């Protein structure tokens, strides 16, 4: 059973399971969206004293922080009990592009970006910090992230969500095709 679960899960298993998680959250009387937790964290840290945007009852959002804590536990389980040591079965063409950027396909994350050697260089640190900054800023400006817009928003046929998802792809495509050759 553990061996079976440890293999990579195909999209036609993962996709429906994500729907099950979303519907479960609806059944619990809540919503499905991760990025609003970042606002909750700011509010809980006292950002509401100075900034109106964070002046809300963050305690009413603790359920979502608990969901977030679950994500961390899910990560622990996946990298221990359900660990799969094989490298990711990428398209060989993708591997060629990666190698041309000096990145090898090993593990879950490229060591060239996430390894401690990379982290302690100015460039490596800035890539991660700016990447994270853009995700946080962009998600709040767009009003949601992959879970809130791409999955629950599109499921509810929300036009603003479609516009945001188009934005996600404009940004992602510009990044990998135009900016990566400059950065890497």
């Amino acid at each position, binding site marked *: 059973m553990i061996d079976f*679960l440890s293999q990579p*899960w*195909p*999209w036609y298993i993962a*996709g429906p399971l994500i*729907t099950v998680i979303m*519907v479960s959250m609806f059944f*619990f*009387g809540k919503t499905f969206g*991760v*990025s609003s937790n*970042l606002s909750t964290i*700011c509010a809980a840290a006292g950002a509401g004293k100075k*900034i109106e*945007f*964070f002046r809300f009852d963050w305690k009413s959002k603790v359920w979502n922080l608990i*969901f977030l804590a*679950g994500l*961390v*536990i*899910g*990560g622990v389980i*996946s*990298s221990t009990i*359900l660990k799969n040591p094989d490298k990711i079965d*990428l*398209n060989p063409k*993708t591997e060629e*592009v*990666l190698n041309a950027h000096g990145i090898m396909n090993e593990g879950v994350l*490229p060591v060239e970006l996430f390894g*401690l050697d990379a982290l302690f260089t100015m460039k490596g640190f800035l*890539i991660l*910090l700016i*990447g*994270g*900054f*853009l*995700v*946080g800023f*962009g998600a709040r*400006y*767009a*009003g949601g992230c*992959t879970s809130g817009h791409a*999955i629950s928003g599109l*499921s*509810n046929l929300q036009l*603003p*969500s479609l516009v945001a*998802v188009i*934005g*996600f792809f404009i*940004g*992602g*495509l510009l*990044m*990998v*095709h135009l*900016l990566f050759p400059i950065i890497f």
Partner: protein
Amino acid sequence: MKSIKFLLAGTIFGIILSKSEAVSWFRIFEMFHFQSFHMYGIIGCAVVLGALATFIIKRMGAKDYTGEPITFIPKNKTYINGILGGTLFGFGWALAGACPGPMFVLLGQGFASILVVIGGAILGTFVFGMIKRYLPF
């Protein structure tokens, strides 16, 4: 104890994101090269079934576990922020290879450097809150 269901849902979601490799920087890179159906299959499948589920919940007037009707809050009908914010999000998603959910899953997987990405995301949210009134919507 009422909170344990959220912890459990998050844990299972974290396992799904891990085992489907959606948390992997490599899969995001591959997705933006249109060289695999994998990520499109995951998101597409979740959306098609999600739309069906949402339709059925609305049609049946389904209730949550407390007996309250399940309601859907429509997204704000603004679009400039969607395209501009969405594009900035996309830059970050491709660069860091993680959207907000996967960041926390990767923390659980033991990648210390993801803390810089999470710190950046919290900082980005904070700066957004600070300058929101100057931004077009």
